[in-house]
């Protein structure tokens, strides 16, 4: 079997101007959205669990650039960034976080359980590992119906220790399903570092015994992500079966909102932020290559902030679901 896992560090090739602008905007929108979500969680507008994506923006934005609107996306509970990247309306996402009628699930799903049939976003799943067979099933259907589409199936570094992940890898390779498994290795599963939970910490190699090719990617570099993504998506779309991308990334915030974060030092977090922030990196590029001036970037910042502010306003003003909604959508 030729599909051997390998590590590749990519050199950034020339990316066109429009694309860079889009990366920047999309990542910034996620960052600002999440910061705001964190804020209004603190104000009591969001309840329960709320897992922020701050630090990981390049992964989902880069991967999204590799697929079309008709391809499918599925992920876990750390899903706000994925939804925004899929083009879901920030208002509807924020209103779901506040549990309001205007939310994507009418307020019934919450942060971890959101869906958009329209945008081919299949959730938002609260149970670690569950989205992996589900994503594999989406790909099964794509192949069955010969749609020519692929599925991006995201999971965390802790998730890869669930048995159903391997059951999925095996079936996907056996049946040549058009799925790209994106492992977002942010180094921790709650308080457990990868090396404390994984006998094989090189997660891109986790498909080896099933002959699923894998590759490690700098997940803090949106260009590297986009390029690896294009290659993997092409592989899957052309009928060669599944592909694994291990994205080396980092979450800046706690696992959820109540995380004392004693398992890592402040210095570690600060160092990551200072040295490899995905948004800073693109920002520098935009300035260095004179695509934007400082003022123009400020303008974009302002625009993004206002989109988020409108989302928050909507999420506060949208009413709570009607009490009758309690008993709807259970069975058809």
């Amino acid at each position: 079997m030729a599909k051997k896992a390998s590590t590749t560090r990519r050199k950034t090739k020339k990316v066109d101007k429009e694309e860079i602008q889009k990366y920047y905007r999309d990542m910034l929108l996620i960052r600002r959205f999440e910061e705001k979500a964190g804020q209004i969680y603190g104000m009591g507008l969001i309840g329960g669990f709320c897992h922020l994506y701050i630090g990981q923006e390049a992964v989902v934005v880069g991967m999204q650039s590799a697929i079309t609107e008709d391809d499918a996306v599925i992920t876990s509970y750390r899903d706000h960034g994925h939804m925004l990247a899929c083009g879901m309306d920030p208002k509807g996402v924020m209103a779901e976080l506040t549990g309001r009628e205007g939310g994507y699930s009418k307020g019934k799903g919450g942060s971890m359980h959101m869906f958009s049939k329209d945008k081919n976003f299949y959730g938002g799943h609260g149970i670690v590992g569950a989205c992996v067979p589900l994503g594999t099933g989406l790909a099964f259907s794509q192949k069955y119906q010969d749609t020519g589409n692929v599925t991006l199936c995201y999971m965390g570094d802790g998730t890869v220790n669930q048995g159903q992940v391997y059951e999925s890898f095996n079936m996907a390779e056996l049946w040549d399903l058009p799925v790209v498994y994106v492992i977002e290795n942010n180094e921790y599963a709650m308080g457990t570092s990868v090396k404390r939970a994984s006998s094989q910490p090189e997660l891109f190699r986790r498909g080896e015994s099933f002959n699923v090719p894998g590759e490690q990617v700098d997940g803090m570099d949106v260009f590297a992500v986009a390029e690896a993504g294009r290659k993997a998506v092409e592989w899957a779309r052309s009928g060669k079966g599944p592909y694994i991308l291990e994205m080396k990334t980092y979450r800046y915030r706690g696992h959820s909102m109540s995380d004392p974060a004693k398992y890592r030092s402040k210095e570690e977090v600060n160092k990551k932020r200072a040295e490899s922030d995905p948004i800073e990196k693109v920002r520098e590029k935009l300035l260095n290559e004179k695509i934007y001036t400082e003022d123009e970037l400020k303008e974009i910042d302002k625009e993004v902030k206002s989109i988020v502010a409108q989302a928050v306003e909507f999420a506060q003003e949208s009413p709570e679901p009607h009490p009758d909604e309690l008993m709807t959508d259970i069975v058809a």
Partner: protein
Amino acid sequence: MEVEAVDEGVIGKILIDADTDNVAVNTPIALLLEDGEDSASLDNYDASGGSENTAKEEEAASAKEESSNSSASASSSGSSVSTGVDAYDASGEIPEGTEMVKMSVREALRDAMAEEMRSDERVFVMGEEVAEYQGAYKVTQGLLDEFGAKRVIDTPITEHGFAGVGVGAAFHGLRPIVEFMTFNFAMQAIDQIVNSAAKTRYMSGGQMASPMVFRGPNGAASRVGAQHSQCFAAWYAHVPGLIVVAPHTAADAKGLLKSAIRDANPVIFLENEILYGQSFDVPVLDDFTIPLGKAKVARSGDDVTIVSFGMGMTYALEAAEKLAEEGVNAEVIDLRTIRPLDMDTIIASVQKTNRCVTVEEGWPQHGVGAELSAQIMEKAFDYLDAPVLRVSGKDVPMPYAANLEKLALPSVREVIDAVNAVTYRS
């Protein structure tokens, strides 16, 4: 008099006095003549059946008459009908004069594990984030420091795997405590729990078993949505081979967990995230245990029996408090163990109150209340003055929205309404 009899025939003797009211179902009311018999031969018939058992039944029945002047008091010849049952008396669990300390349920659980780990080398804890992180809900706080990494083990996120590892270790002589971060995630492992842990004693003809504890928070937490908010009491209570425990207070949590760790069977130990932080009196005793399989009368009363467990007890007790203000004295029974059910304690109470309301956060269909109601019907039908009513979580996945979540959960109001209905006060 109009009677309905199973068989046709000629009445030889009427056993009931004229104008008797409230004759219980299944009470013999008359004897039919057999072929060639005449009524004189029936004069010596002992309507009570004459057994010792029935004598006891009658004693209980008359005792009951003293405490309640309402309705059906007769004993019955139906073999499934319990009378003269003994309620478990939990007051002996804590000797009088024992010093008490205030302690949260969380600390009580931790102390129970620590005490058992000190006295039995075979006991170890494993689960996600139980060691270095000190437990996702801090229940295992301090255990790693005291017992070390050999006995306090962080697992990968791999519930089906480590639950099975626990069962295997139990087969082979250890006493695992498997912590699920929440019982929602035990769904990944339910095959090992049901197919391996619960059935092996039986399948091996008694040679081998899995003495172990599966524990973790169960039931609704606040605003975490459908996949993280559900009660599994009824699921596990369905399975022969398992013991299912769900404590409410810190003292019960401690005493029951210690017993569970020592028990020869796999015990499903259902905790509750919201109760973890609540404090109760816990006895200061060297080795405080509470027997599995025994309910507790948490509050005594004569007018209605409210049966609940775990978090449900908070609704039950608050409702009882409010009802008392209205002059209704509810007896509140805390099941504590859901499998096996302590039906004696419940029946004894229903014999006194003649009415019963069950309270649980789980779904109604095939729930704990459904089982209680069936058994009360089978064993104390004649004592009931009203149908048993169930208060439960609504028959929907748990919604996230604050207002819908409130509607989905049971409420004190619903318990009071149910009590009003069974006491015909509404």
